[in-house]
């Protein structure tokens, strides 16, 4: 009886998440495009719904809601479904939509989509070889095989995003890094841009006029057919076409210049807006926050280095350690069990919400930046894949932040994975990503003022 009630609750919450994913897709991601293949929207919402359900189950685990057998059942069910979606459904549809964009392969879309899927599976399987993620007692078709590989990909993604985010966040918040841009800089660049456009226009007018004269005089290119025509064009090429190709080259160079000027102007405008924003209250608040974040970022890099160098993976989670410290060193007595449950609930809740929100925002930004009307379907599916893998591995890694009694369900359901490996791998990739982002941002920052010096 209770199982039925629990299942109803789970299904309702899944429907809610599905609806939220659907709305997000329509309102945010696809607001400039028309949805022609509803399957894309369905797949995206399904991935989102099942990923959120996993987080929900963790919360229920901490709170002790629902009976533990039904929780276990739903965990397993959810895991199977999400693996099915991430490994079979989404890659297949990605292959299908990529193939349908290529004109040559229109005839046998399904066949080629299957070929793409098999290639994906091959590389996916090969991915597991260099990593010590499994104990040898697992069979070939067990769920641990699939989860371990999904975990590797997802953890790499998480670490890359965290590393970059940890460095980029203070860089964007703090106004210390803002270059000084005045209105006259922008006006000067705009004037240059317009002048370049004018030059392009006048050269194109010359080309058009010359072409028209050639056409009227019958000196068309099509007249130079036949052997005689070719020989004649070699010895004495018509002077106009030589001129034309020269002017055309100049036009190409000018067009490249105009594109660069345009991008620089956009950059300056964006910087000017950021300067204006930093003078408001919100801007100042974020500026201060930026300083805190930079300290946090340095701390995290430091900790990651220590973890790698000293080959240690933290055994206790922050909640228990925090409680230990307060009880032992500060001498405050309180009901450990009660508080540990609530604190871990809050902590895990915050982690979940911020990671979902952060991921959705990043995905949206990424989508706006690179999608076009042709590739929007493919990109959304790729984003759904990334999102699914990201959430699965955050469940994996979240195990570390929870006290022992709540870890059991994750360990039980996901099987005997080498969790320590994942944490080590996360630290390594985080370090690499953070350091390379620092390098990248430093170079970009250095290069920009030099560009303006040449004005």
């Amino acid at each position, binding site marked *: 009886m209770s199982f039925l009630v629990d299942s109803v609750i789970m299904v309702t919450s899944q429907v809610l998440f599905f609806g939220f994913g659907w709305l997000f897709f329509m309102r945010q991601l696809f607001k*400039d495009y028309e949805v022609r293949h509803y399957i894309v929207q369905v797949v995206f919402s399904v991935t989102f719904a099942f990923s959120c359900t996993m987080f929900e189950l963790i919360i229920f685990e901490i709170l002790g809601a629902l009976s533990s057998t039904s929780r276990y059942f739903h965990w397993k069910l959810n895991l199977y479904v999400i693996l099915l979606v991430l490994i079979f459904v989404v890659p297949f549809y990605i292959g299908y939509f990529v193939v349908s964009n290529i004109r040559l392969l229109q005839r046998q879309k399904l066949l080629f989509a299957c070929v793409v899927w098999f290639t994906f599976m091959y590389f996916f399987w090969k991915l597991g070889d260099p990593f010590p993620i499994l104990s040898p007692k697992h069979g070939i078709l067990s769920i641990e095989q699939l989860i371990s590989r999904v975990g590797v990909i997802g953890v790499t993604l998480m670490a890359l995003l965290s590393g970059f985010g940890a460095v980029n966040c203070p860089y964007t918040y703090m106004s210390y890094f803002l270059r000084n841009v005045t209105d006259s800089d922008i006006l000067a660049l705009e004037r240059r841009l317009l002048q370049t*456009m004018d030059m392009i226009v006048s050269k194109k007018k*010359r080309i058009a006029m010359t072409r028209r004269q050639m056409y009227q005089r019958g000196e068309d290119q099509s007249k130079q057919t036949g052997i005689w025509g070719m020989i004649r064009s070699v010895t004495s090429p018509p002077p106009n076409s030589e001129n034309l190709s020269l002017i055309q080259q100049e036009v190409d160079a000018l067009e490249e210049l105009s594109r660069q000027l345009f991008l620089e102007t*956009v950059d300056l*405008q964006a910087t000017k807006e950021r300067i204006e924003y930093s003078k408001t209250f919100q801007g100042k608040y974020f500026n201060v926050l930026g300083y805190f974040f930079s300290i946090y970022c340095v701390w995290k890099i430091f900790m990651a280095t220590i973890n790698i160098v000293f080959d240690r993976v933290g055994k206790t989670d922050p909640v228990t350690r925090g409680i230990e410290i307060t009880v032992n060193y500060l001498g405050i007595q309180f009901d450990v069990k009660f508080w540990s449950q609530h604190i871990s609930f809050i902590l895990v809740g915050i982690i979940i919400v911020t990671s979902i929100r952060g991921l959705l925002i990043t995905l949206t930004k990424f989508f706006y930046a690179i999608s*076009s009307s042709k590739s929007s379907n493919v990109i959304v599916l790729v984003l759904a894949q990334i999102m699914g893998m990201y959430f699965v591995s955050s469940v994996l890694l979240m195990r570390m932040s929870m006290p022992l009694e709540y870890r059991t369900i994750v360990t039980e359901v996901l099987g005997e994975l080498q969790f320590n490996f994942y944490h080590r791998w996360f630290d390594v990739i985080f370090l690499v990503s953070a350091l390379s982002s620092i390098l990248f941002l430093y170079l970009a920052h250095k290069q920009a003022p030099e560009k303006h010096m040449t004005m």
Partner: protein
Amino acid sequence: MASLDRIKVLVLGDSGVGKSSLVHLLCQNQVLGNPSWTVGCSVDVRVHDYKEGTPEEKTFYIELWDVGGSVGSASSVKSTRAVFYSSVNGIILVHDLTNKKSSQNLYRWSLEALNKDSSPTGVIVTNGDYDREKFAENPVPLLMIGTKFDQIPENKRNDVLTRTAFLSEDFNAEEINLDCTNPRYLAAGSSNAVKLSRFFDKVIEKRYFTKEPNQMTGFTDRKRFNFKNLHYD
């Protein structure tokens, strides 16, 4: 070459509707082989015979400014784009017949371009709401072009064409529906070619042959204004 004066027509529309292909077709009479994203603005020139076939025939160069981007771009991109909108003599609004959103976005595109127009008779719109009457007395001629005509499925054709007819009424503009990869749609003598020619004639008339003060914002235009007075017959 100094006798050929300057006329600027903007080509606006969402990204991916086919503006670059269209401009290439209009100016080079050839199909664009490898369309790629337009960064910033690309200009091309079309030679147009004003009042073709009559004794007052005169050749003009029409500059087609193909401005890339989407309506939802960041405000820094929008402010940079605004640089291209000054002293505009005509606007071609391009939308994709297979994508309804691109037609709806045309309102926002036209507002963005016309709001930047600093002429005294320009469209003054508050709150970004479009007002039909204002479009009716708008001094800048508009033309609506729907692309990817060949990709509409047969059964939807009537609905799409009715919808675009309503749209062009709202803008008080002519409409042309074509496929940019097929020059047949603009073959000489076809109704599309006639509409196009009429549009360009209207643009030229508004620019040169009417006595009301037109948009003369840039100092380059003022120089040409003097030129125009010199060789005006």
